[in-house]
């Protein structure tokens, strides 16, 4: 894949929040995980393992766990000014999550013990940016890109601590693992709007940080207000 092809792929990939119930060939799921397998990890520790959930009862139970998480999120989100609320948590949550029809959910698990692969200083001296979390991010980003390359949709569904505990119990995942994200995968039920991103020049500094590009805290809040306006459509299900 050349530079142009890759740029096309990253632009084409969208978070999909509603799926057709049509099954995804087993082969596709394996290919997606093959892409995840080749993601980067600190010292090549490769902490990730994947629980591929197809069974409809189990998927429904996962949906219930996430609904509880979303309900809590909704209550807390209402304490914000309306124009700053996250669109995904603004509406009251009733029933199953948007991804309920996705024929497969990939639960991304990270084995804490593999973290021994990195240099000891990582563990004794605090660093900004936990490599363990980053490894899981890398694998999950690759899952999304591979799904997009196959013409499938995927959604990055972050799991909080409580959802994580329930998922581990539901799926029999050993204590050694952490879960931060699950990825429903399937055929998109709608055509999403185009991706929005900040302009490249706003985020690139040459040789030194350019103060003229630095955002004040008030600027960041304005950015979020603007973001909400632009991305509202992405969160509505078609």
């Amino acid at each position, binding site marked *: 894949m050349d530079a142009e092809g890759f740029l096309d792929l990253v632009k084409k990939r969208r978070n999909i929040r509603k799926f057709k119930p049509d099954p995804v060939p087993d082969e596709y799921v394996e290919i997606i995980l093959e892409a995840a397998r080749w993601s980067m990890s600190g010292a090549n520790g490769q902490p990730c393992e994947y629980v591929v959930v197809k069974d409809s009862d189990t998927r429904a139970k996962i949906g219930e766990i996430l609904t509880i998480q979303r309900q809590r999120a909704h209550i807390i989100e209402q304490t914000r000014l309306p124009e700053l609320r996250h669109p995904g948590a603004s509406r009251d949550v009733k029933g199953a999550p948007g991804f309920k029809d996705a024929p497969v959910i990939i639960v991304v698990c990270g084995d804490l013990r593999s973290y021994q692969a990195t240099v000891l200083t990582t563990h004794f*001296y605090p660093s900004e940016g936990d490599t363990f979390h980053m490894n899981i*991010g890398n694998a999950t*980003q690759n899952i999304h890109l591979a799904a997009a390359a196959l013409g499938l949709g995927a959604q990055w569904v972050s799991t909080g601590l409580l959802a994580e505990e329930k998922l581990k119990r539901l799926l029999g995942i050993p204590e050694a693992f952490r879960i931060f994200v699950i990825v429903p995968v399937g055929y998109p039920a709608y055509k999403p709007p185009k991706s929005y991103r900040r302009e490249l020049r706003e985020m690139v500094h040459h040789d030194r940080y350019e103060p003229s590009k630095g955002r004040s805290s008030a600027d960041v809040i304005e950015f979020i207000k603007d973001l909400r306006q632009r991305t509202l459509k992405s969160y509505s299900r078609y």
Partner: protein
Amino acid sequence: MQINDFLGLVKKRRSIRRFKTDPVPDSQLQAVLDAARFAMSGANAQPWEFVVVKKPELRTKIADLLDECKKEANLIEMTRLPELRHPGIGNPQSYKNMKEAPVMIVVCGDPRTFQATMLSTHFTSGESATFFMNLANVTQILHLAAAAAGLGAQWVSVTRPFERSLKDLLGIPDIMRIYVIVPMGYPSYKPSPSIRRELTEMIHYDGYDLSKFRSDEKILDFLRELRRKTHTAYNAKMIKTKRTS
């Protein structure tokens, strides 16, 4: 088909630790950064900013600073049994090699953008995993974009003491966090093929398959084997490539 091309790309991408001094054309660099900004982030917060360092004296200073921090890491790493030590630490050359890279991309994250995510994330999640994962996403894509452009790149993690010095050197505001430095350029050698655990070992269907669960001892075995297999990747010898006239 696009998926085969993408799979080819993820397998071909290698961490490169020695570079030619040849500069990277601006257009290529822009294209790589352009791809990176389409990385995923929670609530589309896009916390990332990039300080693209080309000035030779700055790149030398960054490599020297890293070398300093490495002494500490080396000291601690030597408290491990030899067969478990991280291969990169023992090598005195590795950060000196970094100087050769014609460009270093310093990946910064603005934690204030994290206000974009749901408030509950901050109260009940217990940690800001998403913030770190966002920075990972952009860095992974940076590496893939570089590989697609025929460039090499390396993931150099930044620790706190180093972050402080880097902020002073590059005038990066205190509020920003620095996660990773990505030296980038044309590889000066052909890297060994990538290795990974077998796919079957890491996939479970409908529930976790306990027969695949590695004991703590097995994890250490994995580590020992990993060190043996990846030693050459960290200590790349220059392979002279024939020049075509």
